[in-house]
C-alpha cells in the first residue's frame, strides 16, 4: 500500500516535472506551486480558458497594485 502510494507520488512528481518543463517552454511564467494548483483545478473540471483569464487578470492586478504602491513611495 505504501509502495503503491510511493509510486503514485513519484508518478505525480514526474508528471509535474514534465508539466513544469512544458510550462517553461511555453513561457507561461508559472512557478511549481501555482502550476500544481492550476493542474488540480483543471483536474476538477474547471474551464481552463476561464482559469487562464483569471491568472492573467490576477497578474495584472498585482502589477497595478505594485505600481500604486510604488507611486506614493
Amino acid at each position: 500500500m505504501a509502495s503503491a502510494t510511493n509510486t503514485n507520488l513519484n508518478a505525480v512528481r514526474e508528471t509535474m516535472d514534465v508539466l513544469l518543463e512544458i510550462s517553461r517552454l511555453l513561457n507561461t511564467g508559472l512557478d511549481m506551486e501555482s502550476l500544481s494548483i492550476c493542474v488540480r483545478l483543471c483536474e476538477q473540471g474547471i474551464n481552463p480558458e476561464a482559469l487562464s483569464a483569471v491568472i492573467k487578470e490576477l497578474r495584472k492586478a498585482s502589477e497595478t497594485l505594485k505600481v500604486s504602491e510604488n507611486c506614493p513611495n
Partner: protein
Amino acid sequence: MASLDQKSPNVLLQSLCCRITGKSEAEVAHQFQYAVRVIGSNYAPTIERDEFLVSEKIKKEMLRQRREADAALFSELHRKLQTQGILKHRWSVLYLLLSLSEDPRKPSGRVGNYGALFAQALPRDAHSTPFYCTRPQSLALGYGERSAALSGSVGTSGISSLGVYTLNGPTPTPQSLLAGQPPQSAAAGTQSLGSRLAWTLPISSSPSTIMAPPTTRPSLCPQVPTTRAVRPHRDGDPASEVSEAALVRDILFVFQGIDGKFVKMNAQDNCYKIDNKVVVCKSLRDISSRLAELGWLHNKVRKYTDARTLDRAFGLVGQSFCASLHQELKEYYRLLSVLHSQLQVEDEQGVNMCTESSLTLRRLLVWMYDPKVRLKTLAALVDFCQGRKGGELASAVHAYGKTGDPQMRALVQHILSLVSHPILNFLYRWIYDGELEDTYHEFFVASDPNVKTDRLWHDKYSLRKSMIPSFITMDQARKVLLIGKSINFLHQVCHDRTPPGKITPASKPADTPKDAAELLSDLEGAFQEKIDAAYFDTSKYLLDVLNRNYLLLEHLQAMRRYLLLGQGDFIRHLMDLLKPELARPATTLYQHNLTGILETAVRATNAQFDNAEILKRLDVRLLEVSPGDTGWDVFSLDYHVDGPIATVFTRECMGHYLRVFNFLWRAKRMEYTLTDIWKGQMCNAKLLKTMPELSGVLHQCHILASEMVHFIHQMQYYITFEVLECLWDELWNKLQQAQDLDHIIAAHDVFLDTIISRCLLDNNSRSLLNQLRAIFDQIIEFQNAQDSLYRSALEELALRLQFEEKKQQREEEGEWGVTAEQEAAEKRRIQEFQETIPKMQSELRILTHFYQSIVQQFLVLLMTSPDESLRFLSFRLDFNEHYRAREPRLRASLGTTRGRRVSNI
C-alpha cells in the same frame, strides 16, 4: 498532495490568488471574488476538448515563433505525459498552459490587453455571481450539464450567446482559425453557393431558409458530427465508421452514375446502396440511399439517350426528344459541378468542415429535391416513351403534360415544344409546300409511292392514326392531310404551276422551338386558325382550278344530260336513228356505224350547242355480247374522263353510270316501244273497222297497251322526277356549298349510290328489278304479238280489198263479179283467218294474264320495300285499285295503308 486534492476549487483558487499576487489571504479577497465570478460564469466556453488539437496548436505556435527545437522537445514531453496517465484532463492543462504562453520576443504588453476583456466579461455575468458563490461545487459540472443549465437559466435573453455556443462549441475548429475567417465572409460564401444552386430551388426559399435546418441541427445533437467529421482526419481506419464528408463525396459521384467508394451499384436490388460491410450510422445510410436514387434515375435517362442518339432510324422527333433530355441532363451536370466545386473549396479550407456553408447529406437532400423531381419526371417519360417514335412519342410526352404540378408541367411543356418542333416543321412543309420530308415515317401523313397519279387523291396519301399527336385533333389532322393532298393534286394532276406561296399567304413556318411552344400553348387559337386558313385557301384554289380549267361542273351536267338521259330531244332522236340498227343481232353491230349515228343525232338536236370539250368525250360503247342479244341489249353511251376530273368520275363511278344508263335506256325503249304500239293502234283502228270480227282482239290489245302505257308512264315519272331530278337538285346544292374536293366527291358518290338504289340496281332490290325486267320483256312480247296480229289482219284486209277491187273491176268490164269458185276460195280464206282470231285472242289473253301477274308481283314487292318512294310508286301504279281487286296479298297491305289513311282523316 493527496490532501490537497480534497480541497474545493474555491480554496485552491484562493491559494492561487495569494500565490500569484504574493499577498495574504485577506489582501486578495477582492481579487478572489473576481476569480470566483469569472470561473463560475460561463465565460468563453468555446474551447475544444481535444488533446490532440491542442497539442497541435501548441506545436504550430512554436513553429510560428521559429522554435523548432522547442516544438520537438514539447512533443517528447507530451508523449511522456500521455504515457503516465495520471492526469484526467490533460487537454485542459495543456490548454491552460497554451493560453498563458507568451511570445518571449514581445513580453512587454502581455498584461495590458486583458483588462478590457475582463471588464467586458464581468458586467454581463455579474448577476450569476451569487448563484455560483453560494454553490461553488457547481463549478465542477460537466460540459453537457452546464450547457443545459445555461440554456435553462439564460432563457430568452441568451439566445445569441446560445447560438454562438451551439455553433462553435462542439466543433473542432481552432479558435484562431475561426477568428481568421470573418463571419460575414462565411455567410457570403454560403449565399453565393445558394445562388448558384438557385436554379433548382423555388424562388420563395431564400438561402437563409435553406440554411435554417442545418444551423439548428447541431444544437439538437451536438456530439454526433464532431466525432464523425474528425475521425478520418486523425486516423484513416477503414473499419471504423465512414464520415459524412466521405459519403458526400461518394454521393456526388453516384449522382453521375459512377460507383463511389462506399456507395455502389447493387446489381441484385438494382439500386445504389452503401455496402453492408461499411459501418455507418443508420440515418446516414438512409439519407444516402435516398440521395442515391438520383444516380439511378440519371442512369436510366442516360442509358435511353445513349442508346437512341446513334440510332438514325429513331427519327427527328426521337432525336429532338433525346436532345431535350440531354439539355436537362446538362443542367443537372451543371448543378453537380457547382456542388463539386463547393466540395473542393471546402477541401482547401482543410478542417473547416461543418460551418454553415459546408456540404452535408441533409443539405444535399434539400438541395437535390427539385432536381430529383425533374429527373423522376424524365425517367418516367423515358419509360413511357420506350419503343415509341414520331407523333406517337409526342403524344406520350403530351400526356405527361397534363399534371397539376406547375414545375413539372413547365418541364414537360419544354420537352414537348422541342419534341413537337420537327412535327410542326413537317406540318408546315406539308401544308404550305405539299412536301413530305418524312424519312423515318414520323409524320401522321403517309404517302404510298406505288400509287399512280390517277389515284393520287384517293389512295396516295393517308393518315397514320398512331402518329397523330394527341394535341392535334382528328379533325385538324384530316384538314392537314387534305391541304397537302390538294397542293400535290394541283401540282401533279392539274399541272398547276402556281407557286405554293400564292395559294395561301403562307405565314412563316415555325423556325424555332420557341415558336412551336407558342403554338402549342395556343392550339385552339392560332394553330387552328392557321390550319383553317390554309385549308380554305388551298381548297378554294383547287376548286377554282377544277371548275375553271377543267370544267368539273360542266362535266357533271353532261353526265346528267347524256348518261342519265336528261337531254330528251337528243335521246329521242338518237333512238329514232338507232332503232333499225339496234333491232339487229348484237354481233352485226359496228361501233363506227353507231358513232356516226351518234354524231348525226348530236348535230340534229340541241346537243350541238353544248361545249365541244364535252361532246368530244361522248362516245358509243358496246357491252359484252352474249348469244341471242340484239343491239338494244349491248348498246351504251359512254363518256370519256381523264385527268383531274377522273378523280371525281372514278372508274367505279363510270361503271355505275353505265349501269344506270342501261336501265334508263331500257325503260326509255319501253316507252318508245309503247309509243309505237299506240301509233300502230291509232293508224290501224280505222282500217280494221271493216273487219268486225277483229274488234274483240283489238279491244284486248288496246286494254293491254293502255295498261302498259300507264305502268311505263308511272315508272318513267318515278325515275325522272322522284329519283333523278330530286337527287340532282340535292347534288347541285351540295356542289355549291362544297368547300373542298372531298366534299364534291362525297356528294357525287352519294348521288350515284342513291340513284343506283332507287333505280333498283342494287343488290337489295334485285327481285324487283327482275320483275321489272320481266314486265319489259312482256311489253316487247306484246309488241311482237300485236305486230303479227296487225300484219296478218292487214294482209287479210289487203286481200279482201283486192278481192273487192277485182270484183268491181270485173263488174265494170261487164263480167260476173265473182265466180263460185272464187267465192268459195274467198270464203275459205276468210274462214281460215277468222279461225286464227281466237288463237290470237287466247294468245293475248295469256299475255295479259302473264303480264298482270308479274305486275301484281312487282306491286307486292314494292309494297314491302323499305323505301318510301317505292311504296308511293306502288300506290301510283295501282291508283284505281285495279290490281288490288285481283291480288289478295295486295289487298291486305293496301287495305291497311288505306285504313290508316282513313283513320287519319
